[in-house]
């Protein structure tokens, strides 16, 4: 489809990104002046996004106090995966990897638009095209935000922010693709296999010795399935809102048609505009709800998965420890290789204890983080809903007034103008 220049790179500037784009999912990030990270710029070509990662630091471990590098989504995944694979971080909740930029929605819409071009009116087509562009831009902004938050989670973690690979990611001004390839060869399918069998380890369960972890396990498993369900249902709601917004577009463009004008006379202008504005509100509700509720749920669903991963690793360590005990008993029975077995058992115990200690800390702070984020988002969402509902009622109210003041056209326009300015 020629009109939408899919191929033309779209640039989002710092201005665009910071302009009223509500930070929804995480709080209190990027506050420590010793290491400040943000993504001020992004370039979108087709569906490949190039992020500009900008760092400002007072730490001597970095070569310069301020610098920027270009990074792709795959680089973020590489960083995440290497962190997960690092033994030393087994007791930490690794921030969930940012999801791949998903332009499927806008792409599908573009397809539909192309197919329906023949049957739509010019106004309808133009309007849908605008909506499509807005949606595309929203996806773009969202993906930038999610990648930024990933980095900021890392920079605000006292242990992870010292990671060597993290530093390379921030600083290395060459292409990371070579490293990415090597990493893939090393880890390959291992990570995936681990995740798959992790559930079984946890559920079939080694007997849990610690009450805290027993509770956490129960809670996280249950909560995960609930939040996954809520996320899916919230997404459905958002889609319905978008459908309604699209209907309003179609209705308002039809009502605008010249042919109807004669019958409804100027009433139709008003009705048209009320529908157009309603559509804008619905569309905005759809996108604001998307930000607040759905994104919140989606983000924490992934975060809880990361917390579960920690539990899996600990459960694995516990299993290893129990196996080492068994091995030690066997060695004692056979009176063979006892010191190695003892050594091994000690190592397993140390690893397990370390994981438990760090895990407890991580899970406690995770709960706090989650509660704070939910609070902030629920408040913002309620405030937005109220604002939108007020705007919608103002619109409806003055359109009602307008329709009623039939003859005093100028007067009525005047009222409308004033009311518009007050919104």
């Amino acid at each position, binding site marked *: 489809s020629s009109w939408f220049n899919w191929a033309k790179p779209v640039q989002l500037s710092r201005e665009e990104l910071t302009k*009223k784009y509500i930070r929804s999912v995480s709080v209190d990030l990027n506050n420590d002046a010793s290491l400040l990270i943000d993504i001020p710029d992004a370039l979108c070509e087709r569906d490949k996004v190039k992020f500009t990662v900008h760092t400002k630091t007072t730490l001597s471990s970095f070569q310069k106090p301020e610098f920027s590098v270009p990074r792709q989504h795959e680089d973020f995944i590489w960083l995440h995966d290497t962190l997960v694979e690092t033994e030393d971080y087994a007791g930490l909740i690794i921030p969930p990897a940012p999801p791949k930029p998903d332009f499927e929605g806008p792409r599908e819409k573009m397809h539909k638009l192309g197919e329906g071009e023949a049957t739509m009116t*010019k106004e309808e087509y133009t*309007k849908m095209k*605008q909506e499509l562009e*807005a949606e595309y831009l929203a996806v773009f902004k969202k993906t930038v935000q999610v990648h930024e938050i990933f980095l900021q989670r890392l920079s605000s973690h006292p242990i992870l922010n010292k990671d060597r690979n993290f530093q390379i990611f921030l600083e290395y001004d060459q292409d990371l693709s070579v490293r990415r390839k090597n990493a893939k060869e090393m880890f390959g399918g291992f990570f995936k296999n681990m995740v798959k069998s992790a559930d079984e380890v946890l559920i079939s369960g080694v007997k849990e010795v610690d009450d805290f972890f027993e509770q956490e396990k129960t*809670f996280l498993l249950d*909560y995960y399935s*609930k939040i996954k*369900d*809520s996320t899916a249902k*919230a997404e*459905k*709601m958002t*889609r319905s*809102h978008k*459908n*309604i917004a699209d*209907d309003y577009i*179609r209705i*308002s*463009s*039809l009502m*605008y048609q*010249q*042919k109807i004008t*004669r*019958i*409804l*006379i100027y*009433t139709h*202008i*008003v009705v048209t505009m009320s529908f157009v504005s309603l559509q*804008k509100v619905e569309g905005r509700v759809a996108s604001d709800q998307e930000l607040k509720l759905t994104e919140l749920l989606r983000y924490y669903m992934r975060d809880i998965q990361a917390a579960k991963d920690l539990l899996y690793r600990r459960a694995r360590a516990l299993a290893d420890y129990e196996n080492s005990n068994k091995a030690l008993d066997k060695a004692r029975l056979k009176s063979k290789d006892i010191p190695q077995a003892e050594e091994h058992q000690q190592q397993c115990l140390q690893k397990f204890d370390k994981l438990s200690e760090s895990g407890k800390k991580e899970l406690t702070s995770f*709960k706090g983080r989650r*509660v704070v984020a*939910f*609070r902030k988002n629920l*408040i913002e969402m*309620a405030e937005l*809903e*109220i604002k939108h*509902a007020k*705007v*919608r*009622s103002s*619109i*409806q109210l003055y359109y*009602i007034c307008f*329709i009623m003041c*039939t*003859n*005093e*056209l*100028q007067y009525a*326009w*005047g009222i409308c*103008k*004033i009311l518009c*300015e007050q*919104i």
Partner: protein
Amino acid sequence: MADAARDPQQDDTGLLELEDGEDLFPEPGPGPALEESGPASLTTEDLSTNANGPKQASLFDDDPDDLFAEATEEVSLDSPDRDVLLSDGPSPAITPMTPPTSVITPRIGHAHDDMFTHSSFDEIEEEDGGDSFDIHISVSDPEKVGDGMNAYMAYKVTTKTSMSLFKLREFSVRRRFSDFLGLHSKLASKYLHIGYIVPPAPEKSIVGMTKVKVGKEDQSSNEFVEKRRSALERYLMRTVKHPILLKDPDVLQFLESSELPRAVSTQALSSAGLLRMVNKAADAVNKMTIKMNESDAWFEEKQQHFENLDVQLRKLHASVESLVLHRKELSMNMASFAKSAAMLGNSEDHTALSRALSQLAEVEEKIDQLQQDQANADFYFLSELLGDYVRLITAVKGVFDQRMKTWQKWQDSQMMLQKKREAEAKLQFNNKPDKLQQAKDEIKELEMKVQQGERDFEQISKTIRKEVGRFEKERVKDFKSTVIQYLETLLQTQQQMIKYWEAFLPEAKAIS
């Protein structure tokens, strides 16, 4: 207005943000002037936005925020009114703006008997002498009568009126659906062929009625009965709003008399029904073969206009039906989300957050109910209104067809007369005195027929002009009041939503 590279989501904070100094009404540009000397009926072209100069017709081309940009092109007011408005001046709170002078131009002369010549668009009562129009009909209390396949719904028809036409001020009768159809069929046979727009009766629904007969007491059959009840009410109100139909004895009998002879010919699968279908088909064929020489531009233009309107309204109706469907879906999705959020709240171990999530679930559930009610409003106000008008336009087109038929009849008799005259001339030439007298008599008869045909044609043309004027006026009122009612429902929904969310906010803030 806006540059092409603008981000359409710029206006995050407000819907109708206008830049400072930006005027709602762009200066009337150097486009074609709207002022036309002499009377001109409003053609669709005149109503285009060329008046504003370079600005094009599309509302959505430029700044989507400037909703009022295209507002100036349409309305015309008679100059006396406009002077009054401009001189009195609105209250000082209203910021002065560039008066849309291109709009307020006396474009319509008073020569035409056209509704647009009236100085105010609505408040014009039908001053037919005698009572002012004061009658209100309601259809209520649907009751199932009988059992099995012979069962039917009986509705209570209540009339409240102060008009002297009626014996009482308030009275009610019980009627069944076929009674309404019978009434319509009688009115149609009396008035359609002379050019009156007889409002069409609600449509039959074999599926819907069968469910009711069989005794299915579920939501869909209740909805069906309610839908029908509402449609019957609108039908009667439209019928009595017509000043001629109101006085018709069949209408009066329908409203007043307790017993009504059963209208059998309205059954769908009856012989009368089949006959009607055949006639309809025949009419359609005839319409194609009648080639009328339209001498009156008004009719040509109006016919085209109604054709276009038909197409538009159908499309609009389809879109509104889609809106209703999607809103029902939204309501369902909200309900299911509410349940899920409640479960999530139960699972949450932080007490305050858990309570807040449960509250969220409650709010979403209440709003889902609101959305459902709104969907009903969408339906009953918008969708049904549009459906009614799609059928009404069909009736209007039918009336134009009747005029064509009348014209054809006139032409046919004229042709016959011509033939007879030729035959007479031949007889005279061949000197057949006895046949000649007969021919002369026949000619006299035909001459009268031709005269009558011409009178009929002129009468129906005159009637149609008046009817179309009345119809358009009614429709403006109808749409206006319905839209107001609809907006009021939207308003109520929003006010409720504000209440619910404002009640939730402290719960969210209470999370520590």
